[in-house]
């Protein structure tokens, strides 16, 4: 008899490995999680409320989540990982520098 958990979607993609754009697939223990990648530092003149939101408040989504990982035991690259918080599935890993450059181009700054 097949065990139900073997076919469960929650067990198909376990983030035991992150595919670092510089180093290739590496064990999760090489990386340090550094939180939500979607929060944006407000303008220095922003209101106290905006700063509190930026510092403490989080969307904490149940599902797809863009997050920062630091490859501490590898290339020291900061990565933006798209990961499903419900299933641990990973659908994309890009360098945070590339994301920052693309967003700077978008805003024309």
């Amino acid at each position: 008899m097949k065990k139900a958990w073997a076919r469960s979607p929650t067990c198909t993609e376990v983030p035991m490995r992150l595919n670092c754009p510089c180093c290739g697939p590496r064990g999760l223990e090489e990386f340090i999680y550094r939180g939500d990648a979607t929060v944006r530092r407000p303008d220095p003149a922003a209101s106290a409320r905006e700063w509190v939101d930026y510092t403490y408040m989080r969307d904490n989504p149940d599902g797809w989540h863009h997050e920062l990982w630091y490859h501490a035991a590898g290339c020291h690259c900061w990565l933006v990982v798209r990961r499903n918080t419900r299933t641990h599935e990973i659908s994309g890993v890009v360098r945070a520098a590339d994301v920052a450059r693309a967003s700077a181009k978008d805003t024309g700054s």
Partner: protein
Amino acid sequence: MQGSRYSILSLLREALRGQAGWKPAWRDAQPQPAYDVVIAGGGGHGLATAYYLARRYGVKRVAVVEKGWIGNGNIGRNTTIIRSNYLLAGNVPFYECSLKLWEGLEQDINYNAMVSQRGVLNLFHSDAQRNAYIRRGNAMRLHGVDAQLLDAGAVRRRLPFLDHENARFPVQGGLLQKRGGTVRHDAVAWGYARAADRLGVDIIQNCEVTGIRMKNGRAVGVETTRGFIGAGKVGLACAGNSSRVAAMAGLRLPMESHVLQAFVSEGLKPFIDCVVTFGAGHFYISQSDKGGLVFGGDIDGYNSFAQRGNMPVIEDVCESGMALMPRIGRVRLLRHWGGLMDMTMDGSPIIDRTPVDALYLNAGWCYGGFKATPASGLCFAHLIARDAPHPVATAYRLDRFGRGAVIDEKGMGAQPNLH
């Protein structure tokens, strides 16, 4: 009301009748159209809240709605430790209130929760750590909480099997709280559920909250998988999922959900007679009454809504255990599991009103919700019934982050390095 009062006589009677006369411990209640208070979340905190609402605050019509079954969440997934060895003024009275409630719990709810005050010993391994524990012990004693500093010799006599001469982390001593210990965690859920049920609380299982209905900025009930349930007041006590449920009322919270794993080994003869924490890492261990070693360590460290963990943390926790007590190296791991923690950004909980009228929040217990169960229930019930914070929980405000009044006991929030 059903279910007899447990006593030596009822035990004898059932022993002679072949244990055939026991009734279910609580009714399988059907949702009524409306209640005075609906608590979302049938974990330890939700059940305790309902119990104290009915028992101490005389609220008549109370319901607890639980998406799964009683004992399915964190109340059935923790390492059973109780203690009140805190440092900060916002925390000590609250956790001491909780420990005192634990001490009288079994008589209070007429249920054997196996409260065992076997002691909690926090080891230290450096001069700086010793100073920190002396300070913490002093803070506890100033609040009338028991604390005792043990030197290296006293720890060695009590726990001879530790790796006292470890090259990196020699055991220099420990801070002992004798009144700390363990409680049978499932019995806490069952006992509170039974006691609340006897007071007329409806415990509605397999009933997931899918929305919070609002009228003119006021919560008037919850939408559930079993229909709408009206409520004069709604209390949220759904650890792990607090963000999701609060979002149904348009709230954004200062917390992330993380998974924390716990572990149980095969059964062994008794050899650890207290709870031991390894101050150099983040590792804690005790031995259950069945003989299994119950232990845990850090959260997995990334947002998760999967109630299961990942291998690197298992390795990390087991390494910490081996560093502390090499003799457990050949013990087999029987099982491990993960539960969801609301990690607040300062590592401390929230018991407060929300910006929505008639909606109350009990959340953010981080790793430490179990020991807080009775006081959390009492304080949340007080808040809901009186619309004012209980005197021992005045610091757990939702707006403390914006006011700069964070309670950073150990810098153990979800991402403490960022704050």
